[in-house]
């Protein structure tokens, strides 16, 4: 039984002491500050959570703790004392000697961080062979033990595989084994579970927590997800714009955050809307089978979207939820099944649809960066659908553009800007204005908030709900995020491996009893509770022993 990770901080010696750290990065030929004077300390065996949104500088701080900056960045001030040595003032060979051996790193994307040309084993033991001058056989045996501790399947032989032969969650654990190979004093975990599905995330989190505790390794755990870090960290440091906002022991911070910004980080989905139902069906897809080439992605999927309602399709990667969106838009004609739009049959392929049908089904994408042509100004972006669908031109079009911008809370001063000059949230609102310019009956939203920071997500969701109230538009909302689903859905469709597992009104789907997969999905979403993971693991092992 693992000890309580939030127990009293060990009064151990100081391991890492970062003072006044300043780092600049080069953008467009100019040096801009990324980290503006950050202090942090870490005792031996302690886990510090480093939390912040994109651009907060948390990864940069994490790498700096190894005395490393990425190309295009530079240290401009401060010190990084590790075991009494200033890493910033060590020469390169001395830094290399520490890295891998005393300080190790676990990257966000294990798939990219493993060298595709080599098998796992030589990569896992590379640092150990170099610095301990140990026997290869001994190092390999130790790596196999670590694989076992990390719950990797077939620990004796998984090291013989190439990275592309191992799944993402397993690679992430193999990378943790690689970091652990030399039994370092400190491991930097840089968003190790962000790229994983929620159900996989639980396994990796549990494995990381167990092994860090077992070897009493200090860790810097970097993430944007407070609920995740709460499961491991003794203390949490909140970063914003390269500066520390607040620092406190985990339980204190969760119970009583001091700063507004910290509070806003877990003011998750304060919005709540009444569940609606509508008699009029806008979009009905029946018995849809679809796929790419030989791969079958959708297997007998049926959904209906009512007027003015939001249908949220939720599932993990590979569940087929995005493919469902592509079928609805006509980009991927289904192999079998029927699509009806406002009561009339809708051609399965784009070519067979009338311009009016194209107008009435609009789409908003996950990444506004990819959805906006970098060479088109805000005006161009909104003007095109107005010209094409509404035949507007001249002053009439101009005033309509301004009206639409106003609807998404962007002012007329944005008209001549290029997307490059907008923030992520502004870009996504521009995409919404473009979709609304067509005056659609239904908007398909494919993970529209997942590329955005927490606070911005909230703004976008509020805006979507308000526009739905005002315009009576329906949403087919594709997402993997259950918190978002809770906030905005009228109807929920749970998908798994191309099939609909469960479907129904929001309140019905979100209350027990659950089908097995929905249960797994719902229980895997980290809660803002430091004991969540411990309780979940206990509950699951109970359930297993009961069933056995």
């Amino acid at each position, binding site marked *: 039984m693992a000890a309580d990770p939030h127990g009293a901080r060990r009064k151990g010696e100081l391991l890492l002491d970062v003072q006044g750290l300043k780092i600049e990065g080069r953008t467009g030929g100019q040096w801009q500050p990324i980290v503006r004077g950050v202090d942090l300390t870490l005792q031996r065996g302690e886990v510090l959570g480093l939390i912040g949104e994109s651009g907060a500088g948390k990864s940069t701080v994490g790498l700096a703790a190894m005395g490393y900056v990425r190309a295009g960045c530079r240290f401009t001030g401060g010190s990084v004392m590790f075991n009494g040595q200033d890493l910033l003032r060590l020469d390169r060979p001395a830094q290399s000697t520490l*890295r*891998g051996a005393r300080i*190790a790193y676990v990257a966000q994307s294990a798939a990219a961080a493993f060298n*595709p040309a*080599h098998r796992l084993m030589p990569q896992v033991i590379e640092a150990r062979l170099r610095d301990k001058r140990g026997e290869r056989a001994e190092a390999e045996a130790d790596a196999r033990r670590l694989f076992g501790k990390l719950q990797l399947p077939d620990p004796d032989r998984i090291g013989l595989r190439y990275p*592309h*032969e191992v799944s993402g969650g397993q690679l992430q654990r193999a990378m943790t084994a690689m970091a652990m190979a030399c039994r370092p004093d400190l491991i930097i975990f840089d968003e190790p579970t962000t790229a994983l599905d929620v159900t996989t995330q639980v396994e990796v989190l549990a494995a990381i927590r167990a092994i860090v505790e077992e070897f009493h390794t200090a860790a810097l755990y970097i993430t944007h997800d407070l609920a995740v870090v709460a499961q491991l960290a003794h203390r949490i440091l909140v970063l914003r714009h390269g500066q520390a906002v607040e620092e406190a022991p985990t339980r204190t911070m969760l119970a009583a955050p001091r700063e507004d910004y910290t509070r806003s980080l877990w003011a998750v989905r304060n919005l709540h809307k009444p569940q609606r139902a509508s008699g009029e069906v806008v979009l009905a897809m029946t018995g849809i089978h679809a796929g790419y080439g030989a791969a079958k992605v959708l297997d007998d999927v049926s959904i209906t979207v009512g007027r003015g309602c939001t249908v949220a399709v939720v599932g993990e990667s590979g569940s087929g939820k995005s493919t469902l969106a592509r079928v609805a838009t006509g980009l991927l004609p289904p192999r079998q099944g029927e699509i009806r739009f406002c009561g009339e049959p809708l051609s399965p392929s784009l070519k067979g649809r009338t311009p009016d049908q194209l107008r009435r089904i609009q789409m908003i994408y996950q990444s506004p960066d990819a959805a906006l042509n970098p060479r088109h100004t805000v005006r161009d972006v909104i003007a095109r659908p107005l010209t094409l669908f509404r035949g507007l031109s001249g002053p009439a079009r101009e005033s309509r553009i301004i009206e639409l911008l106003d609807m998404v809370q962007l002012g007329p001063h944005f008209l001549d800007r290029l997307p490059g000059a907008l923030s992520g949230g502004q870009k996504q609102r521009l995409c919404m204005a473009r979709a609304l310019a067509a005056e659609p009956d239904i908007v398909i939203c494919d993970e529209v908030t997942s590329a955005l920071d927490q606070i911005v997500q909230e703004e976008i969701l509020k805006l979507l709900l308000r526009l739905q109230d005002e315009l009576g538009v329906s949403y087919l909302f594709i997402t993997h995020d259950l918190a978002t689903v809770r906030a905005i859905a009228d109807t929920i469709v749970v998908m798994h491996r191309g099939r609909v597992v469960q479907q129904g009104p929001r309140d019905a789907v979100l209350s027990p009893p659950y089908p097995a997969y929905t249960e797994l999905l719902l229980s895997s979403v980290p809660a803002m509770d430091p004991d969540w993971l411990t309780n979940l693991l206990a509950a699951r092992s109970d359930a297993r022993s009961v069933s056995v």
Partner: protein
Amino acid sequence: MNVIGAIIAKRVGLGLFTLFVISLLVFFAIQLLPGDPASAILGQGATPEALASFRHELGLDQTPLIRYLAWASGLLHGDPGHSLANGRLVADLIGERLGNTVYLAAVSTAIAMPIGVALGVMATLMRGRVWDSITSTLSLVTISFPEFFIAYILVAVFSVSLGWLPAVAFAEAGQTGWQRFANVALPAITLSLTVIAYVMRMTRAALMNVMAAPYIEMAQLKGTRPFAIVVRHALPNALAPIINVVLLNLAYLIVGVVVVEVVFVYPGLGQLLVDSVSKRDLPVVQACCMIFAAVYVLLNLTADILAILSNPRLRRPRRTAA
């Protein structure tokens, strides 16, 4: 299931098909001659008898398909017909010169490839330093030079001013190995300089591409030393592009020899081709073109197959049913 075998078989098939289409192109290009090919070649003043016999010689009295088949089978049996210019067997004309060209290309390859790859690896290790920018600018300048410019500079320096090496590269029977080498020294150096510059730049580009990968950063964070990072982590992943670079440059050498042989009056296949083009001696042109094309196709094919073999993803495809 042998996926890799299937991929390679497909690639070989494509190579053979390319060669077949090229042979069609080479053979039927002659049809592009405006009007009657025979009179176009012999000119206005040709007698009707001469025209008739020439037409027979070209096989123009037969259907194109039969002519093609006869030509192609002749080619495969090493007999691509007679020269129009002097009536000699094309096979004899080529036979004498093919060896000379292969020798020149082999010497150049032996000089250029190791130096080029080594300089490319070195530039990667020294990236961002003065050495890197000097070699990168020098190589850019070298590949911008036409071969004949390099050749004449070398001639002006090494044979006219210093008198060390011959300006004209005769190849005669009875030369000793050393004489033969000294003879092709200037043409080989000319070719090598350009090839070294290309191979160096492309090797560096391939390595730098890999050096930007996250697993290189991971290796740095594991404390792996710079040399080991380049050699152990970057090189295996850049192997396919580098093999490609080397073979593409071998293919480039084929083209390069044509010019260099003309500059140094070296009796090789390239010079024969250029002479025959100006004399419009089509059987010789066709045969030379087919030889050059076959070598080129073969090199490209080898490059692709080696690239396939060096990729663990293809060597050990992941079982899709997961």
